[in-house]
């Protein structure tokens, strides 16, 4: 289904119709998907913050934000505005450049990773051939930012917090990569579009979660640890080290950390839904419905409907996972740093390795089911 509405082609052609040369038309097209994804991811983060506030309140039998906009939907906007207007302090004797660049290095790779997130077969910025590998490589840049922030704060408790956060991040990267490797092995490709297409055609039954249940659990736990969400939120556990490596930050730099943690959360939920829950696939495949009504695949309105359903399904799965993650935050107690690292190195790593070996064995014995 690679033909169909070609947004890029028609945009460039219409600009050429106005008299622009082809190269300039292409150059004007280039930033548009990136801008859309940037704006889209910011709005998605605002929705995630609103969900966190309301779901946390419901779990605690409270109401949550109510009067800031209808149903409190402007609450995250108020949060962001407050942080914009706060004074941006750099502590005395802190390394100014490291202090400033720390949050940037923590946040920018997360936004960059939105390059590979597909909302439909052609609805992504760029179909990089090694999609998920790019995400794992980019998320490995984050510990450097954490170390920079912790060290540059000129505060021994922030330093400790930064070291702990880095240890946590590194410990959970390997089980994450191993779980992704099992998926890539099954789908014969690292590209996110190929991974989703490999799960397509059978509706609900084709999702990877049935073929990789242990991998799903490992990936979910490792992604939670990478995002520093409870039960793994030791770096920002208020009772432990005040706010860990984020203690000395205020104003816009703190807003970067705050925003970055929710972007990371949304990105992880998106990737879980893409890798394991079928991405843009509806529980009943749209192709099945359209073929029963004998509508051809290339009719334009069907393409629009399919695209809309794809985006909707991706978002529904993502926010169901975000809901689950917020629920987990208020259910499970926080783990200590040694328990955290034990879990990462001594439990998840061997289980992920075993999962990879099992997947390899099953792929050789049942090539039809596990990706031939």
């Amino acid at each position, binding site marked *: 289904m690679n033909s169909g509405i070609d947004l890029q082609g028609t945009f460039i052609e219409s600009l050429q119709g106005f008299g622009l040369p082809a190269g300039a038309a292409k150059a004007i097209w280039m930033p548009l998907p990136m801008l859309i994804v940037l704006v889209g991811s910011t709005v998605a983060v605002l929705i995630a913050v609103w969900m966190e506030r309301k*779901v946390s309140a419901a*779990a*605690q*039998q*409270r109401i949550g934000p109510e009067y800031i906009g209808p149903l409190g939907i402007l609450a995250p906007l108020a949060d962001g505005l407050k942080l914009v207007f706060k004074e941006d302090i750099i502590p005395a004797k802190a390394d100014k450049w490291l202090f400033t660049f720390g949050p940037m290095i923590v946040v920018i790779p997360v936004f960059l990773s939105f390059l590979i997130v597909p909302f439909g077969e052609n609805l992504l910025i760029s179909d990089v051939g090694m999609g998920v590998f790019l995400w794992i490589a980019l998320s490995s840049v984050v510990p450097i930012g954490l170390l920079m922030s912790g060290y540059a704060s000129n505060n021994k408790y922030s330093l400790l917090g930064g070291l702990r956060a880095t240890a946590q991040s590194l410990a959970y990267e390997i089980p994450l990569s191993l779980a992704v490797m099992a998926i890539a092995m099954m789908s014969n490709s690292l590209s996110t579009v190929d991974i989703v297409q490999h799960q397509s055609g059978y509706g609900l039954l084709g999702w990877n979660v049935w073929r990789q249940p242990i991998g799903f659990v490992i990936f979910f736990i490792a992604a939670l640890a990478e995002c520093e969400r409870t039960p793994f939120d030791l770096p920002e556990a208020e009772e432990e080290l005040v706010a860990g490596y984020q203690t000395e930050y205020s104003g816009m730099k703190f807003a970067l950390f705050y925003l970055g943690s929710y972007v990371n959360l949304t990105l992880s939920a998106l990737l879980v839904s893409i890798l394991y829950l079928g991405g843009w696939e509806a529980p009943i495949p749209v192709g099945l419905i359209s073929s029963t009504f004998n509508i051809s695949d290339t009719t334009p309105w069907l393409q629009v409907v399919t695209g809309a359903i794809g985006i909707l399904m991706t978002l529904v799965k993502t926010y169901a996972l975000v809901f689950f993650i917020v*629920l987990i935050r*208020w*259910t499970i107690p926080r783990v200590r740093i040694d328990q955290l690292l034990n879990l990462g190195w001594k439990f998840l790593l061997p289980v992920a390795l075993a999962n990879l070996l099992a997947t390899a064995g099953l792929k050789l014995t049942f090539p039809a089911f596990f990706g031939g």
Partner: protein
Amino acid sequence: MLKFLKQVGDYTKEVVQSAKYIGQGLSVTFDHMRRRPVTVQYPYEKLIPSERFRGRIHFEFDKCISCEVCVRVCPINLPVVDWEFNKATKKKELKHYSIDFGVCIFCGNCVEYCPTNCLSMTEEYELAVYERHELNYDSVALGRLPYKVTDDPMVTPMREFAYLPKGVMNPHDLPAGSRRAGKTPQEIVAETQAAQAKVSAITEG
């Protein structure tokens, strides 16, 4: 080899058990979401303070005998009792009485020890002012009746936990005229009288 397998088996059992505990916790958290929130949305809903609530102190000027027990019993000697001995009537005459609620700790000692019961504690707690000198209540301000939550047309009064019927946890949507849990003193008296009558009937008959 066998010992290693046994270790793996034990570890797996522990993992399954912890997963079960987490699942039970999640079901509790999820169950909380279907309950009505207990939030008292001040200022549109206010709690009705309980009967012995230690709010602002009320003073009856005419009952005061200027004995100054309230001052001696107060931890900070706060009430200012301005009295003068009237030689003609051979009695103390109270000229002015004031309590500074910016300093008062609302312990209730003065109320407890007042011999003429001219001091009492009301249910008023909304004493916020723009300047702390306005908190120094004179005898006129002290004699005012308190603000009643049930009289305010803009406010839905909510009962506190102790005044809810048995088994009810949420003061919202309480049916009108619900009785609080427990028996009234009249009921307890009637019950003891009935029990005594029964006992005496048995011993006599």
